[in-house]
């Protein structure tokens, strides 16, 4: 276990290093970046803010990691966030209790995921197309639920679940860390992780070996929908209302990016949820850092793109090979230099 933990950390070294560099840059721009204080019964500080603001992306990235591990992709998660936020707002404002609202909201997310999973598993539709359907239709469904307005609510329970403070920690942070732990432990302490990887690497061979490929695909897309439902609830609670047009907008792309930055292959197979979460935190650190830097906001997306390109280039196998080559060349050059130095000495003697 210790050895596997160490090898896991080693594998994630580039991601962790990238996160450290970005945090250091942030600290250079904004003095007091690492300060964390406790006031009014909660933690304050830029780091807490990153953990908090990064919650939706982190949650989506958990589900997305497993979907991508099966050689799939889920483009619908942003729209599912909107649907689920709208569902939660509609239910709570029409008098349902908090438990019923939460249960139905989560169920809605799971149903959305099952729809995607069924298209992929039973109809054999390519995941990118299958989930594009709900990505496009989802915002329409959310608008139907909110009847075209931003559906505001003032239920303290729902607001607490999505944006309250528990033991000094913001609820979004508690939620994504708990779910990451639950999913991470579930896939590694059951056989799910290995079976998901097998499906992702070679679905047909896995099927012929008796793996229940259809069930697994349904399960990972359902989990992705479930994570999107929680992210949607957080997004709604944050503004105390359901915005069908903007809730979770483009977040599916951030989630995919988090998974990729986390070192997971879009071709499926081996996956690391921790990697994806580090990826999500890298993305949020960049967002927060840019805000703190005080650059005009129109620079934000471009700067973000530049940083992400830099990270991906550093991670790519080609550049790794190049770096390794350059390293060898330099060390052999220095050896040569070291070898040449004694030569004149010998001549002299």
């Amino acid at each position: 276990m210790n050895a596997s933990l160490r090898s896991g950390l080693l594998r994630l070294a580039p991601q962790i290093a990238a996160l450290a560099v970005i945090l250091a840059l942030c600290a250079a721009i904004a003095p007091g970046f690492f300060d964390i204080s406790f006031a009014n019964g909660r933690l304050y500080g830029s780091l807490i803010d990153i953990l908090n603001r990064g919650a939706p992306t982190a949650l989506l990235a958990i589900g997305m990691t497993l979907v991508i591990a099966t050689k799939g992709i889920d483009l619908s998660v942003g729209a599912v966030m909107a649907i689920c936020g709208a569902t939660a707002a509609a239910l709570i404002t029409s008098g349902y209790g908090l438990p019923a609202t939460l249960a139905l909201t989560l169920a809605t997310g799971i149903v959305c995921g099952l729809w995607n999973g069924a298209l992929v598993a039973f109809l054999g539709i390519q995941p990118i197309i299958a989930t594009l359907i709900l990505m496009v239709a989802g915002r329409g469904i959310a608008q139907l639920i909110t009847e075209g307005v931003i559906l505001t609510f003032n239920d303290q329970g729902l607001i607490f679940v999505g944006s309250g403070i528990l033991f000094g920690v913001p609820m979004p942070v508690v939620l994504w860390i708990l779910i990451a732990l639950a999913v991470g432990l579930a896939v590694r302490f059951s056989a799910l992780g290995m079976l998901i990887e097998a499906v992702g690497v070679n679905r047909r061979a896995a099927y012929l070996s008796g793996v229940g490929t259809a069930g697994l695909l349904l399960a990972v897309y359902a989990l992705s929908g479930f994570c999107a439902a929680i992210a949607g609830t957080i997004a709604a609670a944050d503004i105390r209302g359901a915005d069908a047009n903007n809730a979770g907008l483009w977040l599916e792309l951030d989630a995919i990016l988090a998974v990729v930055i986390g070192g997971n292959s879009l071709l499926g197979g081996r996956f690391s949820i921790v990697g994806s979460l580090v990826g999500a935190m890298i993305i949020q650190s960049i967002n927060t850092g840019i805000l703190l830097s005080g650059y005009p906001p129109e620079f934000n997306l471009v700067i973000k793109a530049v940083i992400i390109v830099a990270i991906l280039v550093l991670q790519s196998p080609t550049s790794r090979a190049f770096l390794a080559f350059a390293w060898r060349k330099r060390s052999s050059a220095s050896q040569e230099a070291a070898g040449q130095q004694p030569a004149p000495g010998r001549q002299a003697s």
Partner: protein
Amino acid sequence: MAAERALLEARGLSKYFHGVTALDGVDFDLHAGEIHGLLGENGAGKSTLIKVLTGAYRRDDGRVSLDGAPIDPRDVMDAQSLGIGTVYQEVNLLPNLTVAENLFLGREPKRFGLVDSRAINKRSREILEGYGLSIDVSALLSTYSVAVRQIVAIARAVDISGKVLILDEPTASLDAAEVDRLFAILSDLKARGLGIIFITHFFDQVYRICDRVTVLRNGRLVGSRPLESLKRIELVSMMLGRELESAESGDHGRASEVRGEVVAAFKKVGKKGRIAPFDIEVRRGEVLGIAGLLGSGRTESAELMFGIHEPDTGAIEIDGAKTSLGSPRDAIRKGFGFCPEDRKQDGIIDDLSVRENIALALQARRGWAKPLSRREQDALADRYIEALDIRTSDREKPIKFLSGGNQQKVILARWLATDPRFLILDEPTRGIDVGAHAEIIRLIEELCAEGMALAVISSELEELVAYATRVRILADRQHVAELEGEDVSANGIMRAIAAAEGDNTGEARS
């Protein structure tokens, strides 16, 4: 004709891929006005030979001459301009262009720098009328049947090249009438003096249209013979690589007096379009061999027996109780295992480790909620790595880095770990090195002696004879005979295959 100089002459052609010999010193002659059949099982080197001749691959050794002049086509375009045109099984045309555009693609007559579509339509109509085809050439190719596309492809190849026409399994998706039409066109082209190379695995078509056949096996030339004097059984023996005259070894000797109880019985099980209904009983301690030429329905039979496809007729009994197999998962739960023919596509999970590949089927059967602990997986992997002598530096190595023979052993280990009662092996020794080959055969014999029921599909006749108790003969997607006891011999199997292929021709002709 023999005195006449060959149109296309190849001597000592060799081609290697990463140290694997795909073609080994093959000679090939094609005369003008000849239809020349090229035969061989999968992996015999037919397509490599064609690709070398057409410039898709550069040859590593040997020489080729066309009309007596040495040629060395750099690529397919080069070969085309020299006079060698090819039509592949999946027609290499563009369905979203018109028939005429397809005929003149890349060589359109221009007028003021623009494609002169009136001219190409007119020329196209003339060309196709030469093939007895009067269709609207300005319609999209996709609106026509495969047979028409095939003719368009041939017309294009002949129009561009005009000396040698290579047809790679052109009849695979045609019905009888379309085949007749195609053959009429081929006879016509032959009369015009073209040399035609015709690749197929349908015996009756070879005998109908070809003047000569060349047979390849394992990348080597087996022989090139005029068809008039070649008996069917001789052709079968050329393809399967065994001399008819050689002494009968008689070492099949698996005494069948003590028959184990029936593990599974398949009664009139069949699926339309894949395999005609068949009966099979498999017994403990028995190896059922399954023999037949390529495309005879061997793999299709195995797929029904393992639940990969559900039969639409017949019944399955396991231990005397009626049951059904809806999926491989179902079959595995009933104690079945299946080593597929295409190891890369259907067998290995290439990025996962040897350990995970071995544990996969057992883990899948236990279900995701009952994981094998890491220690159990390690023990399982170590046990089989030792028992089957799997050559790997350690059990965590991704399986894609192992050699073919060792990958095959890992797949076998995957099934043995599930302790199956009935194991189906589809070409278990294809494409693996000699050492692993012998070990796998020994393993089959051991498993059988331990009381497992096995069904083994193989085109290696000696191999089947060595371990099979009974041999089922397949031809043309039907189970045609079963050999048992003394009859299980390489000669017996070949005779049965030749007889069956002959029968089919008889029917087709009548």
